């Protein structure tokens, strides 16, 4: 399991969600999704709070959270880079794109750069197979990538962000 982040968070942000879903059976995944919407990840303190309010043990909650690939346990960077490793992308050379992106950012899957700018997540399919190979950065899709093109996109984003 990935390590949970121990930074303290404002738990009052969670109360509306808990008021709405804590007593509705079968809502644990929904609660976790809302939690991640609020904080950007699942903070360990939130797990304890959800446990108090729903009666599910922290072990059960973490068991569910770690089962699904959607949930993260560390804060993510300003740019969330989702690199597609689907079949169509693989056939069109996604591995070389992945190497270039990891080399350019100096991080691997599920890591964040030290400057807090980029997080990388390798995902199974973004469903834009005809544009393969693709990556998605903060909801924008970049298609027909080459290693050089991918590097340039990341460099431009970094330049943009550091100029601000």
């Amino acid at each position, binding site marked *: 399991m990935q390590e949970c982040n121990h930074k303290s968070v404002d738990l009052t942000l969670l109360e509306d969600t808990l008021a709405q879903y804590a007593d509705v*059976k*079968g*809502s*644990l*995944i*929904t609660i*976790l*999704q809302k939690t991640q919407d609020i904080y950007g990840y699942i903070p360990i303190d939130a797990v304890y709070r959800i446990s108090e309010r729903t009666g599910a043990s922290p072990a059960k909650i973490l*068991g*569910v959270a770690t*089962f*699904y*690939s*959607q*949930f993260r346990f560390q804060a993510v960077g300003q740019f969330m880079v989702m690199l597609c*490793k*689907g*079949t*169509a992308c*693989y*056939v*069109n050379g996604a591995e*070389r794109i992945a*190497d270039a992106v990891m*080399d350019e950012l100096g991080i691997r899957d599920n890591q964040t750069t030290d400057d807090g700018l980029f997080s990388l997540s390798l*995902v*199974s*399919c*973004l*469903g*834009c*197979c*005809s*544009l*393969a190979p*693709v990556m998605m950065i903060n*909801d924008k*899709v970049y*298609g027909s990538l080459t*290693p050089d093109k991918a590097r340039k996109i990341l460099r431009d984003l970094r330049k943009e962000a550091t100029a601000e």
Partner: protein
Amino acid sequence: MKARIVVGEGSCGLAAGAGEVFTALEKRLSPETDASLSITGCVGACFLEPIVDVYDGQGALHRCVHVTPENADTIVSAVETGDYSLLNEIVIQPEDESFLTKQTRIALRHCGIINPESIDDYLAADGYDALEKVLKTMSPEDVIEVIKTSGLAGRGGAGFPTWFKWNAARQSPGDEKYLICNADEGDPGAFMDRAVIESDPHNLIEGMLIGAYAIGAKEAVVYVRAEYPLAIVRLTEAIRQARERGYLGEHILGSDFCCDIRIKAGAGAFVCGEETALIESLEGNRGMPRLKPPFPAAEGYWRKPSNINNVETFANVAWIINNGGEAFAAMGTENSKGTKVFAVTGKVCRGGLVEIPMGMTLRDVIFGIAGGIRDGHEFKAVQLGGPSGGCIPAELLDTVIDYKSLSATGAIMGSGGMVVMDDTTCMVGIAKFFLDFTTKESCGKCVHCRIGTKRLGEILNRIVNGEGKEGDVELLEELCNTVKAGALCGLGQSAPNPVLTTIKYFRHEYDAHIRDHKCPAKACSALLTYSINPEACKSCGSCAKKCPVNAITGEKKKPYVIDPNICIRCGSCRNTCKFGAVDVE
């Protein structure tokens, strides 16, 4: 009649820049222009995106492709002047158009034509007629009978007769029953379910309501992949509209039938495509499959009778009710009726969604509709059914597309992912790719699947790294059969298929890796050697500049040389060289 400009805004279209095109058109249109601007979903011709459909005053369609924001002026000028020859440059070419005209569309019949955000558009296209017919003139048993006549089978992969599942759920005792739509399209390379939800959400709602009526469910749930945000937005809006117009909720269309639909976003787990795992996930648990029996029809969601069908299955239902079971059964083969949607991707010229009657051959689809292999390469194999399926070689291209014939090859129909590969794709590599996927996605419940896939992956890994041993192929086969026999659910039972089919049809590639330490497709980087042909080298030095590890040295007027001990086999020199002087062995 007013001219209409319609921009295709499915996920693919938006990724290709349809949003910017729409904004440019909006900006260019003046209030005086006698034309409307709206959106539609995905017509499935992904290779032509962004697509803008222009209907002139007579209602004739001028389909513009690869549209850029700069084309907005041309399009609006054509509409304003009535001179549609202005569009000649960007209008679809006849050979590309044949991609669409050679298809038979039932599940996708409205996709890319109607506005998915407008219930009125759907109603104008005979929407909710089938629901009205069912509620006013048919008993639940009548509905099941029509579906039985149609021969509709589950489009999610297993191909189980839909009427049988509906009937079993109907016959199960109890008042509390559930209808569930599986929209957790997890097969990498398949996106037809997303297209249906994004482009024709009311069709899904109508099909689900008819199913709910047939089994006697008052509550229905759509379990959608969280990675499909646009699909969730469009479906949420469609549900709201349907409820407002009385197609959802209490006493639908004045009948005694009451049913509501809600959406549950999945959280990313391939195994949740298995119906009992999906139910566990709906209940807020880890998505691990249950023992069957009891089947969901007897004990499903909250242990109540439940019926689960896939999106594409529901997308056929309203058409079948409107046109009769016989019309659907008239298409297809002896054991597979109707049409099937395939997501054709990979190395083809024209990739996208293809809906065809069962009974066409793989060659018809890959060469006839998708235009064959691009960039002058040769067809090697087509992968059907994703991680649960297999690779079919060139000599079986005339295999007929139906459940039985495809299973006989060792592949499966699956949900309809069709990834086409050429001579640059390594078959051992593709088997390893799928094994990596299933290893990661195995829920861990059954030992054979959890550890077996891991071990299979390790063996494949050593083969692609040139460290394979004699007997590895036999070991793979033995382990594959063990995993198949020892797994509880479809994921584990089918995970070995990509390995078994590549061994069956491409054994020589395995042998080349193991015995000769060669990758025939020149794809496995560990087995490649790059060198510069001194005859062809013009000493320009561009390869040396590109080399990320400075493995290439040389000077003016002398051929450059690659140091194999430093070379990381990334291939950038080969891609850079304008003279084709870099050889790879």
